[in-house]
């Protein structure tokens, strides 16, 4: 009996020691490697038909699906600046939001404290409550986002940029989100990553350009 017990212990110890040699995929990712960049667009839209844009002057902070405020800390300011540079590089001209821009850019920081699966469409579906359409001069309108954009397992933080069609908002009676960039992973809100992250979203969206 004792011998059997000794054998069982030996086997369990061996399995434990060798099993712990598993290469943990998460521990073998750097912060940069942990991040994913997802861009989505309305495939019916011709992005070169838009000429001007305006960008929100602050960043929305969304915590577990609720807007908890707008902020403009140094990271936010840097990101807004980096997005502005990227839009300018693609030929779009920034104007004041009172000058009837063709496009609007909303920038959001999203925090999820749960680790459950999060359906991104939940975010889009409740989008109307996030940035008041009145900001864009269309008080009373709803946002429309094309449905079903998949889901990913959430961690603590994400960053989202939405490109809004303001040019056709009056005729469509809605503010259509025609492009979205989403960044998830570790180290998103480090100041040193701002430029590369904004650039990454635009690099994978070559269709995002206009002919002036």
């Amino acid at each position, binding site marked *: 009996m004792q*011998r059997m017990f000794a*054998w069982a212990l030996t*086997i369990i110890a*061996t*399995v434990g020691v*060798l*099993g712990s*040699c*598993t*290469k*943990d*995929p*998460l521990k*073998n*990712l750097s912060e940069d*490697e*942990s*991040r*994913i*960049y*997802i*861009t*989505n*667009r309305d*495939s019916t839209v011709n992005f070169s038909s838009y000429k001007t844009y305006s960008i929100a002057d602050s960043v929305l902070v969304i915590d577990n699906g609720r807007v908890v405020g707008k902020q403009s800390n140094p990271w936010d300011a840097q990101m807004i600046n980096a997005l502005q540079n990227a839009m300018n590089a693609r030929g779009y001209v920034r104007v004041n939001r009172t000058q009837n821009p063709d496009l609007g850019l909303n920038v959001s920081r999203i925090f999820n404290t749960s680790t459950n699966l999060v359906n991104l469409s939940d975010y889009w579906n409740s989008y109307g409550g996030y940035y008041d359409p009145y900001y864009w001069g269309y008080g009373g309108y709803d946002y429309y986002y094309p449905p*079903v*954009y*998949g889901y*990913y*397992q959430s*961690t603590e933080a994400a960053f989202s940029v939405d490109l809004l069609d303001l040019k056709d908002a009056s005729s469509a009676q809605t503010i259509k989100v025609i492009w979205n960039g989403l960044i*998830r*992973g*570790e180290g998103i809100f480090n100041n040193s990553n701002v430029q590369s992250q904004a650039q*990454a979203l635009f690099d*994978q*969206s070559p269709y995002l350009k206009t002919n002036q």
Partner: protein
Amino acid sequence: MKNSKIFFSLIAFLFSAFIVKAQKGENTFNISYSAAFPMGSFKNTVSSNSFRGFNASVLHGISDKVSVGLATGFQDFYQKYPRQLYKLSDGSDLSAVLTYSIQTIPVLAQVKYNFTPGGTVQPYAAIGAGANIVSYTQLYGEFGDKQAKIGFAAKPELGLQIPLGKGGAGFSIGAAYNIMPFKQDELKNLNNIGVEAGFIIPMRR
């Protein structure tokens, strides 16, 4: 279907061997370190060789040449691809580092044939068949999920045993072709060649 037929035939054969020939004989515990080399289509997805694994078995000698028993093992496969752009089914573009992490744990009924019992060096052939418990993780960046699946595994093996004295203990080295059907994402199987080296330890009552 074909695999399961082979599997059940083998199990039936092994147990009939036990019933008919089970008699006094030596029980041995075999433990070995193993390295595995992905083959065929598995190599297209996971090309990195695995040096993280082991095998263990408990075999009962039903004659000088033939022993039967249960074998198990563990092998960890890992592959990380640099950042690339992927087109997802919903039309979105995803830039990510793609990682695969796959662990296989076969649990096999095994029969082993020793060509030269009593020899200084004893070549052997073995075949095992049974279940394969697979833990599969596919990550885009740090996002993804882990799945556990049970499939079929078969393991034809050739090797050498080197006895240490007459007590039944010894060293062994061997190579096996691990047949592991597994359908998931781009994968059709986890077939690999395993190379192992270890010890034979007699289990006395």
